[in-house]
């Protein structure tokens, strides 16, 4: 087992697999239990087999059944060799930070600082964090790419973006 842990790759006894499976199965079980609240069939004149509930019922049941072995291993009888091993490739620090920046600038940022500002800040901060620290790369590339993106999306494809809040500060 130790040998197995030293290697990278899938570990058949990883409890992470079971935990993630159980989370998805638990979510499906919650939806099944509350299905009447999720799908309002009171005004539907159709019989059950023609209605909107039959298919979700089947697929959610499959999800729950598929996750039962994971629940069993996780809660009742864990494998003695099992561990909280993921894949031997470390904690997801870089993806977490970049993902945080992506959420910050592309979900909240667009409305406050506009598409150009969001794009530039996301790129420059991400590249700086990812150790591309020469001015040419993290500033030069970010500006060039932002200009290209703005030209393509705003002017060539004529996509509407909300007016950034920051511009309203300066009036008309």
């Amino acid at each position, binding site marked *: 087992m130790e040998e197995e842990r030293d290697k990278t790759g899938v570990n058949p006894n990883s409890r992470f697999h079971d935990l993630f499976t159980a989370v998805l199965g638990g979510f499906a079980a919650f939806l099944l239990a509350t299905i009447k609240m999720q799908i309002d*069939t009171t005004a*539907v004149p159709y019989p059950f087999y023609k209605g*909107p509930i039959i298919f979700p019922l089947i697929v959610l049941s499959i999800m729950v059944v*598929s996750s039962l072995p994971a629940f069993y291993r996780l809660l009742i009888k864990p494998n003695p060799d099992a561990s909280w091993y993921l894949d031997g490739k470390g904690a997801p620090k870089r993806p977490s930070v970049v993902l945080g920046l992506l959420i910050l600038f*592309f979900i909240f940022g667009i*409305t406050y600082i506009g598409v150009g500002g969001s794009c530039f800040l996301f790129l420059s901060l991400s590249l700086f964090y990812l150790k591309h620290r020469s001015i040419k790369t993290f500033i030069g590339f970010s500006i060039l790419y932002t200009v290209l993106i703005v030209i393509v999306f705003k002017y060539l*494809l004529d*996509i509407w973006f909300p007016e950034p809040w920051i511009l309203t500060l300066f009036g008309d």
Partner: protein
Amino acid sequence: MLETVWQGLQSTMSFWNLIALTFGTIIGIVVGIIPGIGPMVGMVILLPFTFSMPPGIALSLLIGIYCGGYFGGAVPAVLMRTPGVPSSIVTSFDGYPLTQKGEAQLGLSATIVGSFSGGIISVIILMLLAPLLAKIAANFGPPEYCMVAILGLIVVIMAYRKNIAQGFLLTALGLWFSTVGIDPGTLVPRFSFGTVSMQNGLNIAPMCLGFFGIGQTLLILERKILQTDTIHLTRSTLDFSKLLVAFKYKLTILKSGIIGTLVGLLPGTGSILASFLAYTEAKRSSKHPEEFGKGTPEGCIASEAGNNAVPAGALIPLLTLGIPGDALTAILLGVFTINGIYPGPLLLVKEPVLINTIYFTMFLINIVALILLALFLRPFAMIVKFPSTILAVSVMVVSALGIYSLNLQIFEIGVAIFMGILGYIMLRLEWPIVTWVIGFVLGPIIEERLRESLSLASGNPLIFLERPISLGFIIASLLIIILPIILDKRKKKSKKLFS
């Protein structure tokens, strides 16, 4: 008949179609060359932009990426023993030894000729086989369609039977995602959690872009897949005399192309199996099997002809039955359905021009890819030197804005990011995420056919057992589930006995 063939040819040769297929092929080669990216990411990034295009042009663009990706994947496999797409690993068995011997040009010529020939052979088989299958499928009613779609799902799940519970779970998750939003049959909102945005349902573009595009790029950020400074090509173009040498292996080309197409026909089998089978068969029937693995162009040809025949093979069940065999064809199915075109036996009758356009486009894509790689080999190969992390964050920006541009909703960027997190976790856990996308795409088809079938029988589920073709599909599905489990158990038992 001839008229529709002519119209298909005209449509293929139209200016915008030629632009789309050339651009798609270039993007395909680029994403294929970069290890860790692959044609799937290329397709999902461009997916939002295809929604405003006519279906023929949208499909040309995406099929260009699909086929171009396999062409491109062989280049780093030969030059650096790093396959651009997973199936090119087999190409590296002989391609890289050729490079070490100073015969990189021969190795690349062999892979490009193999890819080109495999692609052409498979398109010919597609043209011959699709009408035959469509004729058989023309007898299908809702129960048969429902069961053949379920059979397709089961074949894909069982292809990943080492993770069978996860396979079923992810397929069901994909099917569930497809139910979110207003039910088209009764107009009742489902699983909208009280939000208006969820009532519109979950669009395929943000779902797939998040799952595959953002998920994959997050993975690239931490794995530094692309690191090389060791590419040395003496010429910027391909040596054409070597191309002719590669064309000498006619029988290997033909056999590998046929094997690849047949493997592509089966849902869930994938191009790696096609490459391996074609390579093994070429080695078995070769006059010099001892040279395999030490650097023979025949090995490169076999593996590339095998994997490049898969796209056309996978289109056969897609066009005739509406069943996608892998994630890439599932995306194509999404493009069809968004444009109100439903693949199935009637597609060949209802949309003959579109079908002929697809055939001719696939021919042209193979020719364009061959020419592009032959003329611009070095510039394409140098793409591998581009830093992976810069590429990853650039892809994220295009993905986020591409999704926004679809419906001008920031909510959909949120959906994509959520799916990206899910996709990233599943990629790290090495779960069979293909099953999720096939479930998501087939969900509406299965649900509609299921409800139609039950309506036909006034709610009696025995209708699926009463109709012989449907019963046949049920038996086939059960056998596909049970047989491998029994065989695996027997193998384990015999291993125990020997040990």
